[in-house]
Structure formats: C-alpha cells, structure tokens
C-alpha cells in the first residue's frame, strides 16, 4: 500500500514550515515556488489546508506522461519523477485532480512530493502534528478511530445535558 502524507487541516496553523522545509531539503534554499507542499488559506472554510501529492494507488499523472518519467519508487512506494526523462510538457498538470504538479522554475522538470526518500521533512518540521506519514490502509483505521472518539464525546455532551 502507498505511503502518503495524511493532512489534518484542523491542526494546521498556516506557518508554512512544511513548505520552507521542503524547498530547503530539495533545493538548499527557502523558495515557496519550488515547494511541493503548500498550506492554502481557505476563507470560506476558515481553515488552512496543506495541499500535497496524495501518492495515488493508480496515478493519473503516471498514465498520461508521454515520456514515462513518472513511476512508483520501489523502496518508498512514493510516486517520483525522473528528472532526465521529464520534458516539462505539463500533461500531468491537466489530469491531476489536486493540481499538485509544479514545474521547477530553474531546472525545467516537474516536481512533486517524493516523501524525501521515506522520511518527509515537512512532517518533521510541523510543530502542530498536522502532518503524518501513514500507509493508506492504517489511515482509514486512524480516521475511523477519530470518528469514534468524536461520536463518543458527542454522546457524553448529550447525556450531560440530559441529566
């Protein structure tokens, strides 16, 4: 199962440490146009939402790439880009439902989250534990557990009111 970065928007405070750490890790400079994760302020929802690659099981970008520059890394199961094959044709831009792919401004190939070879820097740098790396099946587990806790809190409140 694909490992990916699970985002909990409730905890994100928009400090962009993840974005800064990401470009620092990959390009040795702090540059928000070279980052592969960017927290967006959504006024209507009233939340910061860090958007990054969801490491899909059947990635559309992998299918559409005319140069087979996108492949699944065996070790980290992350979807990675081969810099030499990628010609920067932006076909993956169109199909990615999350709008994640970005062209590296100076080097001309597509950059996306590659889980930093297994230990993502954004997760380490996030002070609010809004980001965590999980296998996709235990992500579902974690979501179910959280939902259960919320439900339980709710029932307690109701019983409190009732008594």
């Amino acid at each position, binding site marked *: 199962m694909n490992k990916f970065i699970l985002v909990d928007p409730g905890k994100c405070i928009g400090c962009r440490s993840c974005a800064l750490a990401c470009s620092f890790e990959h390009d*040795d400079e702090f*540059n928000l146009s070279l980052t592969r994760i960017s927290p967006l302020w959504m006024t209507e929802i009233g939340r910061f939402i860090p958007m990054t690659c969801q490491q899909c099981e059947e990635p559309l970008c992998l299918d559409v790439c005319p140069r087979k520059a996108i492949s699944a890394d065996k070790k980290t199961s992350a979807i990675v880009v081969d810099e030499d094959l990628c010609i920067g044709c932006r076909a993956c831009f169109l199909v990615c439902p999350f709008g994640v792919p970005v062209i590296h401004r100076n080097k001309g190939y597509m950059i996306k989250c590659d889980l930093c070879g297994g230990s993502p820097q954004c997760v380490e740098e996030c002070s609010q534990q809004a980001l965590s790396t999980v296998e996709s099946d235990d992500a579902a587990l974690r979501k179910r557990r959280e939902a259960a806790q919320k439900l339980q809190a709710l029932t307690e409140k109701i019983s409190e009111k009732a008594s």
Partner: protein
Amino acid sequence: MLGYAGSILIVDLSSGKIEKVPLTEDMARKYLGSLGINAKLLFDHTRAGIDPLSAENVLIFGAGPLVGTLIPTASKSDVSAKSPLTGLLGTTSSGYHFGSEMKYAGYDHILIKGKANKPVYLAIQDDVVEIRDASRLWGKDTWQTIDLLQEEWKSEEIQVAVIGQSGENLIRFSAIQNGKYDAWARTGMGAVMGSKLLKAIVIRGKGGIRVADKKAFKQVSREMRQMIIDSPFFEAVSKYGSMAAAGVYGKFGALPVKNYQTGVIEDWFQTRGFKVLEQYSDQKMACPACPVGCAHWAVVKEGAYAGLKIKGIEITPVFEIGAKLFVHDMDGILQCAAIFHRTGTDIVSGCGTIAMLMELYQRGLISEDTIGFPVPWGDVETICKLIRMISKREGIGDILAEGAKKANLALTGNDDYAMTIKGLEILSFDPRSRWSVWTFGILTNTRGGDNLRTRNPVENLRFPSLPDDYRTEPFGFPEEFYNKIDMPENVKRKIINPDRKTTDIILMEKWSEDLIAIFNAIGICTRPPSLQAQGPTSIARMLRACLGWNIDAEEVMLMGERIWNLQRLYNLREGEKREDSLFPKRFYREKLPDGPAKGMAIDPDQVNQMLDDYYEARGWDRKTGVPKEAKIAELGLGDEWFSVVLP
C-alpha cells in the same frame, strides 16, 4: 549574499525612476537589517525638519536577514519614515508573509521617494517593477482594494500593503494594512504613503534565500523552536494568543477605562477575558515558521454583526475598544476593529482620540451640537460612525484626524485629556497601577508613547508592582528558570538581584531595549514565548548559521545598542527635547479612584530621577539625553552624531 536578498529597491514616484541598488556587506554588518537599516536610510535620505507629509519624506519597507527562512517567527517587516503624528522617527512592524515575499522577490528594503501626480500602486513581480495606475482603487477601503487586486492578479498568493481612506485623507494616525487583518499601524505611516498618492504595494516573489551552513541551520532552527515551546509562557500564549495577559491587567486594576479615568471593570474577565475567545474561534493562525500561532480566526455567528469574519481577537483591540472606549461585548469590539482595518486607521491612536472626545462630552466641555450627535461611552454605532468620519475628515472628524493632542488643544485650548507622550497615544494599561520596565519604557521609547519596543523579557505578571518602589519590579521566578535566562553572567547579576525577588528597572530597560532592537532588526517576534526564549547567544548562533558571519553574543548586543542610539540621534536631530518625556498630566494629578492600586498617582520627581539615571546608564548626558562622545565612538555613529550636535 547569504540570508539577505541582497538589494534595495529605490522608487522615485515623482520621476518614475526605479533603481535596484545592492545592499553592501558593511552596511549589513553595521546596521544588521530591517529597523536598523531603515533608520540609517531615513537618516541619509532626509534632511532635518522636513514636513513629514511632503515629497521630501521617504517611506521605507525593510525585512530582516532571517526573514523568509525556517527560523521560528522570522517574518517581521518594518516600515519607517518621519512620523506625521510625532514629528520624530516613525517606525512600526508587522508580521505574516509580506516580509518573506519581499525577500523572495529579491529586495531587503523598498525605499519610496517623491510623490506621484495621480493615484498609483507599485507592482513588483521579482525583477519586473511597475508603477501602475490606481485611480480605480482610490477611495476604496482596504478590504475592497485587496479583493480587486487579487482579481487583477488572478491569485490569492500576492502580498499587499495598502492604505484605506484614512491614508488617502492624510489622517495623522492612519495605518498601512498588511493584508486584510494586520497592519503597520503606529506613528501614522499610512499618511506618508497617502501623501505620495501611493495606494498600495503588491509583491509576488518567486526567488529563494540561501543560507551559509545548511546542517547547522537546520539544527539551530529546530533548537530555537524547541526553546520557544519549552518557555513557560508558551502554553498560555499558544492557546489564547495575546489575550492571555488580558485577565491579569483586569486583576491589577490597570485597565485604561474611559480614557484612564479608572482602572477597574467588574465583569471584565467574564465578558472580555481570554475565556471569551473559545466562543469565537477554533482556528489558530501563525506567522511563518512560528510554533505558537497566537492569532485566531474569529467568526461572529449571531447578533447584530453576524457573518463578520476577522482574524484577531488581540489584546490591543480588546483593551483599546473594550476598556478605553468601554464597549461591553466582544461582537462590538470586533466590528469596531473591522472598521479600523477597513479604513486603514491605527486602533490605539484612533481609540485614544475618540476616548478624549468622549471624555470632553462626558464632562460637558464640548456641546453635542459641535459634534452633531451624542457620543456616550461604549456605543458601537457611534464609534464606527466616528471612525468613518475621521477617515473622511467629515465634520468633527477633521479635527480629530490631527491626533488626540492637537484635537484636545483645538477643542478646549489645553491637552489635559489627551493621553499621549510625544504626540503618540499611549497603549493599554495604566502606569499608576502597574509600575514596571514596561511602563517606564513608554517614556524612553524612541517612537513616543508606546511599549512594544521596551518590554521586560522576563516580566512576572503574577505579582503586582510594589506601591512606592519606582526602582524595581517583582521577579520571583524559580532558580532553574533564572539560570536559563540568556544573559551574560555579570550583566544578569547586576540586573536581577541575587535573591531573585526583584529586577532593577533601569538596567533591565536598557538591556531589553537593545535586545528588542536586535529582534526587530533580524525580523523575529517580540511576543512573550519568543522574547523570553531567544537571547544574544542564540541570535548569534542563528546569524552564524544563516549569514556565515563569525559574530558572538557580545557583538550582537553592541549592534542592538547601536541601532537604539541611531534612533535616538534621529529623534534629537528632529528636535526631541527631554521635556517631551512626560506622562500625560492625569497620571501625576489624579489618584486612581478604585482597584488594588487605589489612591496611587505618579510622583514626577521620582520619574525625573529615574530618567537621569537611565540617561547615565545609556552613556548619555544626564540632563539633555544627548549621547556622549565616548558612547558614540564605541558605537561608531560619528557622522550621524555630528549632524545632530553641530547642525
């Protein structure tokens, strides 16, 4: 250059000339950045005695060397110019993303000269800098302008500095809005921008910032973050932001109630304490790389102002609107704050001026028909109406727009009810009930009646100040905390007496002023957890890792002192006298009517005595406060000093 973006953008609005000047290494090594270099540029680019609202004044945006990197809270940018309100050094800082975006676009400083012949806005996209027509934006409030600009640029990622109607109509205390909810508010920078017919600056930067030693930098930045998280103040400020201190000042009876007439509000804690925050917000908002996240996104769900969405249940609006103007409920406070933001007006000065008017009305010193309508305390609609009138200089607003001091003089011939020092309306709590480094700092602050540049990093808010002790404030932290304070041993022993019960106010004043000057110069946050956690040694480590300089704690504090003295010299050049350093008359004449510090008033001789000792401690002349030659030589401020001493 490492850490720095490496250049200064000089825009002359009169001729339309745009120039990119390199930021030299020695300018950086001497004045460090942001506030420091801003003051130096202001010194060099203006003559003494110019009219702050003329084309001769310059408006300078500055971002420090650490801004835009992963150093926790490194985001502050400073705006400086000659202040139209105080006539002295106008400087004000604000966080969030404008500073970083400036540096990503490749500029440490943006210096704006001259005056445009029609409303314009400055559009900066990396190297492409254009002066674009802003006639369609002129007259709009800041929120509308930002929406229009975001539409024009088809992106919500642009960073905008914009003035509202106040700036356009040259209101002396108008602010420059940093995005919709923050501002470079104090000392009237908005009027300077408005006098140049510059409606906004839009920046979009796609460059990057490199640092000297990647591994060391990563380690230092993580350690800094951990130190902030381990600070005793972290828990409270992270949960309630600056509101954490709201309750305490209520306990001390130090609230600026109804223009400082009294210090106590009974239901203060229930209606405007930090607990109120939970009803409004569950979303924290942080500056870049900050683990604290002290701001909150507030949504007013029901009531007269339902649907209002604004960031910032902060101590300043709650104290100024809640206590000084006596507005009772949080909804009303947020609505007034929103109007202040939309019109681009400084909340502190605005409330100080309106409070003065309301007190004159309460005391019958001004009739209702000169105002045109009653102005009772705490009425939200009236306050909002007054703010709009001020921003458009309508009716009484035209008089109030000149600031509390001049408005008081114009209305009653004296300035008894203008709570200002050197023309700047003072902020938050009442000095009579809480005497500390913070309150004495309001006198010594280089930008007038304000405390954000002179607060004690290790202030203990659990103990009230001792009634007649002007020289010390309570310390009372445990041994283990004392040892962790980042101060050289010899200085620490002199400032905090060995039994750890009290702190010497004057010595701590000098230390904290220099330290905060460094904080502002490199762009990190001066709120409690960050201010207490960071110190000269940690800052030196950060500068080494980021800039590659070999610099120690010693030189860091020297730089801080140099920047403080540079500001002092500028003020002296612009005519600041020792007599200006006076509290508002009320604090000397009237005793506090109620609260724990009932019957307290400030003894002018004690204050004068302290001022002499402070000047002495600073190495300035005891009487006039002009820096002595020895100190100038030590700090290397020779040429600035000459232009002051022999004009």
